[in-house]
């Protein structure tokens, strides 16, 4: 996969957490995460809270320092670069945040916030900044009248549009979208999702779309990587992963997503018990304590992410052993 814009290999992030008075334990936020995104493509990173999906996004953009692994942007290794070098690469990779209001400095008008990357990186000559800001506002569906407003004076949807305009200011090639619509109302969410789709087409952007909402993911993503307790448990083309899931966790996630229509019947698979803590997670398959299909073998052998065919891979031990041509019915 030499044509990938973003390539991540073995990315890990561990935090020490205080436990008891003197002890320290490790919170594993991301573990051996490998993924790649091509130009113009959307990869969704799906997971619930505690899965480490936001951490992965931040580590890729070096907003947090990964504990291990490599990140390549356009073939260039950026993991070892000092912050001053990373800063020169930032125009190419930008982020849109979950809470638009909190990601915008409350003391500055939004026009200035959008202008900031323009003059930081000298994207356009100083005299052109004003014109370019208005252009960016138009691009994301805002008007000239919004330029002088303060963040709190805008609605949630408008704030997120400002966040997107700011991310686009430096003409990036990769956008990491961290749950960009989960704080918004349904009707506004649709506007933002459509906007993101249009922008991708227009600007040939690559998206790493972080989300917990499979419905939103199915609409936007070409491929999906499902994250559970810091590990990717399944990857593949969106429709394959959602409609013919391999991993029990993906199956449970799909089954728990509310129906689209009251008459729709769904097969339900529920995970037992409460979410497992990411602090000192189970050694082999991390789903074992909650998995309805777990067998003794699952906690004995290492669960590795293995390819099933050219496009798909899964981390389920039983699936890998028992499937026939990608079909496995564990309840039999």
């Amino acid at each position, binding site marked *: 996969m030499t044509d990938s814009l973003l390539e991540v290999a073995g990315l890990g992030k561990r935090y020490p957490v205080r436990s008891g008075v003197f002890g320290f334990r490790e919170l594993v936020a991301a573990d051996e995460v490998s993924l790649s995104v091509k130009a113009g493509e959307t990869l969704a990173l799906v997971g619930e809270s505690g899965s480490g999906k936001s951490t992965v996004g931040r580590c890729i953009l070096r907003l947090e320092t990964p504990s291990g692994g490599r990140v390549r942007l356009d073939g260039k290794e950026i993991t070892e670069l000092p912050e001053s070098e990373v800063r020169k690469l930032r125009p190419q990779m930008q982020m849109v945040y979950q809470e638009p209001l909190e*990601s915008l400095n409350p003391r500055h008008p939004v026009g200035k916030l959008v202008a900031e990357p323009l003059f930081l990186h000298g994207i356009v000559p100083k005299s052109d900044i004003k014109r370019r800001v208005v252009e960016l506002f138009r691009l994301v569906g805002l008007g000239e009248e919004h330029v002088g407003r303060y963040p709190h004076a805008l609605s949630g949807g408008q704030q997120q549009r400002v966040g997107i305009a700011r991310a686009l*200011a*430096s003409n990036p090639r990769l956008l990491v979208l961290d749950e960009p619509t989960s704080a918004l109302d349904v009707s506004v969410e649709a506007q933002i999702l459509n906007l993101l789709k249009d922008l991708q087409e227009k600007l040939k952007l690559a998206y790493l779309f972080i989300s917990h909402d499979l419905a939103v993911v199915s609409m936007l993503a070409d491929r999906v990587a499902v994250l559970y307790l810091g590990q990717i448990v399944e990857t593949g083309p969106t429709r394959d992963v959602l409609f013919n899931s391999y991993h029990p966790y993906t199956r449970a996630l799909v089954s728990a997503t509310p129906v689209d229509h009251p008459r729709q019947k769904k097969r339900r698979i529920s995970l037992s018990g409460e979410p497992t803590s990411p602090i000192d997670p189970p050694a082999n398959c991390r789903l074992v304590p909650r998995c309805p299909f777990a067998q003794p073998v699952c906690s004995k052998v290492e669960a590795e992410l293995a390819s099933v065919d050219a496009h798909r891979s899964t981390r389920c031990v039983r699936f890998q052993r028992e499937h026939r041509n990608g079909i496995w019915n564990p309840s039999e």
Partner: protein
Amino acid sequence: MAAVAPRIRANSRALLHWCRRNPVTAFGFGIIIGLGILGLLAPLVAPYDPYALNPANRMRPPSWDHLFGTGIFGEDIFSRVLYGIRIDFGIGLGAVAFGLVAGSSVGVFAGYYGGKIDEVLMRLMDIVAAFPGFILAMAIAGVLGPSIPNLIIAIAFVNVPVYARLSRSRFLVIRSSLYAMAARGVGASDMRILAWHLLPNSLAPIFVQSTLQCGWAILDAAGLSFIGLGVHLPTPEWGVMIGLGAPRIISGQWWISFFPGLAIAITVMGFNLIGDGLQDLLDPKRW
């Protein structure tokens, strides 16, 4: 140019509206601004030279000639209280300004570098703060000798830990904010994040604290002068004046210390009222 007049009118209407909604804060501002103007115009307003003595007219009670009465050397208390505004406001604002600059530098420095530097600086601040403020100020003023600059230094020094702690904690909160991260994400350098994103957001609570501190600084200045460690005679400083008149209260000449005391009380109250309301005023959500 023609547009200026309506803008002024609109602004003054907005100001009036604000005053009606925040009467207490507006009252505080009224007191301090009013006193400030009186202090500036003291040479015009004061009926007598504050340094002029009139042995023939000693310790006269308030009258139309001498609104606040006269002191033990026959000096006009009213004129001296007016000139006192200059001295006491000067000392208060000076002390706060020094304390603010020194304290927040220490706080931001400690918060920015963290680790050992943070630990050493903040423990030093703890040591300073461990002494009762006034007693420490007394000691410093005593060592440096009585003069207005030394008084300012003594009071400022005592307040440094207050600002250091406040600015450090504020700094740490804002540094971990999402918009600080977002600023790094668009490629802003540490210095830029510090100056353009963090500083404007840390100032509000520090301003509030300084306003409150202004009142206390004036009280401290008066206190130190009262016990002879501050400003000396014949300077028209409120604390000195109270000290001069204090022994005469028993013999019935209350006005000598009462009016400078009242001036201090009103001033401290004014600053406190502003401080309480300022929190609200500096919230960007109100703009």
